[in-house]
């Protein structure tokens, strides 16, 4: 078992190395484990413990597997959301990426470079220049001004005072904190404090931004503002982001892809639409039950074959159009819409298709639920 694991790891790093540069994935994580507890090293890959639930494992070994055999890749420029309830291991996972927490086993590569093989200095360089993190509790230094907090990362890099302050000023403006540069963190609201945290991370111009539940300490309206801020920044800069959250709507709103975690393992990894439309198991289905499906699922998934002259009549919409927008179009015209990609009509949607999505009767979403009920 361990033999094949090492073999896999080896080939993976080799692949990653060849695929390095600016095109491959930013992070490539393979078979990652983080186990807390006595003699944690014996747990990963051990078939004896493989089938145990988290509770059984703790009872048998006294160990907790916070991250359990996780493999994924973060593509360049995407917002990769890791979602799960508290205790699912997501915060531990994001910390292992830059070895703020040392993983127990597995491999992590950033731009194809093996993170676990890095020595202290290289690791420090990685943290100084390639990644930057935004924390749930902000982690600001109360004795410094907003400006000096934002410039903190640059100071650690060894940048001179005038230069780093000038650079920090730019970032302060970018996150909408103009005029507050000379305030202390205690004088700011929670949302403003997190803007400082965000600015501090942006100031070092990192390749990847890591967010650890950055907005869960904020109240809902401010949280929405901040989410929009992140979306705007991503649109403007296209920076890769790894975003940890326990809030499904936040995940759906921000994520290009979402990785759902439970008890340290991956339950499902896919686009928001895939996760809502095709839940991998009952746990995920339960999770996404209350989602407004029409706001996540696109017409590509809802359309049917065109009948007769339908392919030439009706308003044209793109296949990525969300169902909610299609509903508006259909309601306005009173007729069906054509789903058009380029010059080709892929299919049509009318009221019944769109209503099926809203009701959750489309495709396989309704079917397995029926099966589950039958099985009980």
């Amino acid at each position, binding site marked *: 078992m361990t033999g094949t694991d090492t073999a896999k790891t080896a080939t993976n790093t080799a692949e990653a190395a060849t695929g390095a540069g600016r095109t491959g994935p930013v992070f490539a994580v393979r078979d990652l484990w983080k186990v807390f507890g006595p003699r944690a090293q014996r747990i990963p890959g051990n078939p004896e413990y493989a089938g145990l639930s988290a509770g059984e494992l703790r009872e048998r070994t006294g160990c907790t597997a916070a991250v359990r055999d996780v493999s994924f890749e973060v593509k360049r420029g995407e917002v990769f959301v890791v979602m799960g309830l508290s205790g699912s291991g997501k915060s531990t996972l994001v910390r292992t990426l*830059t070895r*703020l927490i040392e993983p127990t086993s597995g491999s992590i590569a950033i731009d194809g470079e093996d993170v676990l093989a890095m020595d202290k200095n290289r690791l*420090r*360089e*990685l*943290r*100084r*220049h390639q*990644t*930057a*993190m935004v*924390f*749930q*509790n*902000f*982690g*600001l*230094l*109360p*004795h*410094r*001004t907003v400006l000096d907090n934002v410039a*903190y*990362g640059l*100071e*650690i*890099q060894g940048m001179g005072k005038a230069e780093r302050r000038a650079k920090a000023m730019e970032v302060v403006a970018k996150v909408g904190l103009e005029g507050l540069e*000379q305030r*202390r963190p*205690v*004088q700011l609201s929670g949302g403003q404090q997190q803007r400082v*945290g965000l600015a*501090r991370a942006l100031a*070092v111009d990192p390749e990847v931004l*890591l967010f650890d539940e950055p907005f869960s300490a904020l109240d809902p309206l401010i949280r929405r503002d901040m989410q929009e801020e992140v979306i705007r920044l991503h649109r403007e800069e296209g920076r890769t982001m790894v975003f940890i959250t326990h809030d499904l709507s936040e995940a759906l709103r921000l994520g290009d892809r979402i990785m759902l975690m439970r008890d340290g393992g991956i339950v499902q990894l896919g686009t928001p639409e895939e996760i809502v439309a095709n839940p991998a198991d009952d746990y995920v289905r339960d999770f996404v039950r209350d989602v407004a499906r029409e706001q996540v699922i696109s017409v590509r998934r809802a359309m049917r074959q065109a009948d007769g002259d339908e392919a030439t009549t009706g308003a044209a919409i793109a296949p990525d159009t969300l169902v909610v927008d299609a509903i508006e179009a259909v309601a306005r015209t009173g007729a069906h819409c054509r789903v058009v990609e380029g010059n080709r009509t892929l299919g049509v949607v009318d009221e019944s298709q769109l209503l099926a999505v809203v009701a959750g009767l489309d495709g396989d979403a309704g079917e397995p639920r029926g099966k589950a009920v039958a099985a009980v």
Partner: protein
Amino acid sequence: MSAPTLERPAKTAAPGAPQPPGTLARLAAHPKAVLLVLAALVAVVSAAVAGSGEWPADLTVDVRTPLTDFNEWLVDNRTTHPLFLYFLLHISNTAESAVDGVFSGLESLGFLGVTVAAVLIAWYAGGAGLRKRALVTAGTALGTFGLIGLLGMWEPAMDTLSLMVVCVAVAALVGVLLGLLAGLSDRAERMLRPVFDTMQVLPAFSYLLPFVLIFGIGVPSAFVATVIYAVPPMARLTALGLRGADPAALEASASLGANAWQRLWTARLPLARKQMLLGLNQTIMMSLSMVVLATIIGAGGLGEPIYKALAVVDVGLALPPGVAIVLLAIWLDRTTAAAGERLDDPDEGVRSARTAWILRAVVVAGVAAATAVGSALGKQEWPESWVVSIADPVNDVTGWIERELSAGIPLLGGTQTWADGFAEYVLNPLRSALVGTPWWALLLVAGMIAYAVGRLRAALTVVLALGVIGAMGLWTRSMDTLSQVIAALALTLLIGFAIGVLAARVGWVERVIRPVLDTLQTMPQFVYLIPMIALFSGGRFAGVAASVLYALPAVIRITTQGIRQIDPSALEAARSLGASTGQQLRQVQLPLARPALLLAVNQGVVLVLSMVVIAGMIGGGALGVDVVKGLTKGDLALGLTAGIAIVCLGVLLDRITQPAAVRERTAR
């Protein structure tokens, strides 16, 4: 004889068994309580039968002869032995010349220069500018030095201040270094913590004894003892600050790639600033207390006139230096506290580096100007003509108190009547009971109480402590001291709990007594003796009263805080069920505040005991007087054994008042 012996076990059993022994069934449920009652019974019966229970002579060990020999050897070799020549003498010479240097520095500044320096530094610490805090601290400094001069205490105050400056500088430096060690390394913390814990329980004078032995009487002993006495708070609070830093901030620092040095310098230390300033404040206050106390080993300064005045019971002479000490204490406390408050103040804004330098330049320039003006006017020393003597009016008042208040006031009696009554009806019976009980029965009871509240280890420690006292041949004298300590402790707790509960429940009481407690807690122990001399003109009761006054603030404060900090929803629930005030107190507040109350008892023990020696100076007698004699006359056999006996009593009382659970929690 039988009446007092009956009274005693009931008293000693009280702290051990929180619930009154009710029915046999309830007793049976608590085997420890049964053992305790049995031990008490044995003690009472044996005391009634034996009538006297002194420690047997054949169980004592002669420790005085070797101690005296050792002392003589030290005196003979102090100038010749290599250990002294190449190590200890360097310390004492350096200390001495440093203190002299600071003193001549203060002298050359002149009284104007010193006053202006004190005012400007206080102003700067308070945040500078025209802020209220800065002006108030500056005003405090001005008032302090002006009054010290007016009272004719300038010269001794500068003596005290010079010794203080050197001691605080060294203690703060050592404290920060040890604090860094304990804050950054778990192993160092595990090693240092028990040392600091022990040091905090030891009474101040016990630091003087060993250094008098090594350095002889004078400034070096005072310096070393003060530094060692004052280091723990600085070290402890530095470590606490370093360990208590916001983990998110530290993680943020790590995630940005800070190395260990950057993390310490940019995050850990700045985040610990507030705690470190608090540590500096405590170190300064403890230094002042010790420097004043060190007068009895010839350190000079403000303590000296008090010490002399106490010997001849002259309140008029003792009051000016006493007031000067209190003023110094308030000035030092306010200045360092203001510096701490400034960190919390968000309105403080940010001072650019240039403004900060300008302000510092203002301070230096102001001091220089004042010095120049002073020397130009030819006024270096505080002018004689500006001194107001308050000795005579004060003595008139004291005389009036003695004549009018000492006895014969209808219904109330009088101060002397109270003192005599307390001695006759409380202290004497208590002492007879302790002396009358056979030593082995006392050991048994003490061991049982310690076992009941703590563990077997506590019981063994207690028995051992009493054994050491007996073996040194100090049984009777120690029992005398113990009776005074127990009486003072009982009085302290009675008054302290009453006021503490009142302050916790009634808002305005708390607001009124808070500044009073603040002031009382900053005053050095020595100062408490002066009013007691005025009111009771010495004796055992005066000593007990001084101890009570000294220990009260801490007990009141801990009680109030303990009761205030209980879960408010529990109290709200009781109130919503219609509980009366008494029910709220009995059923919710006191039970929930129990850990705090136990801590208050323990603090009371430590503080009362630390006053024993000082009370010895005004007629407390017994061990206290032995220590004072030993320290002043260089009779170390006498002083050291009595000192060890007091520390043993301290260990005894500490162990039987501090349940294992509380010990563990405070340790964390």
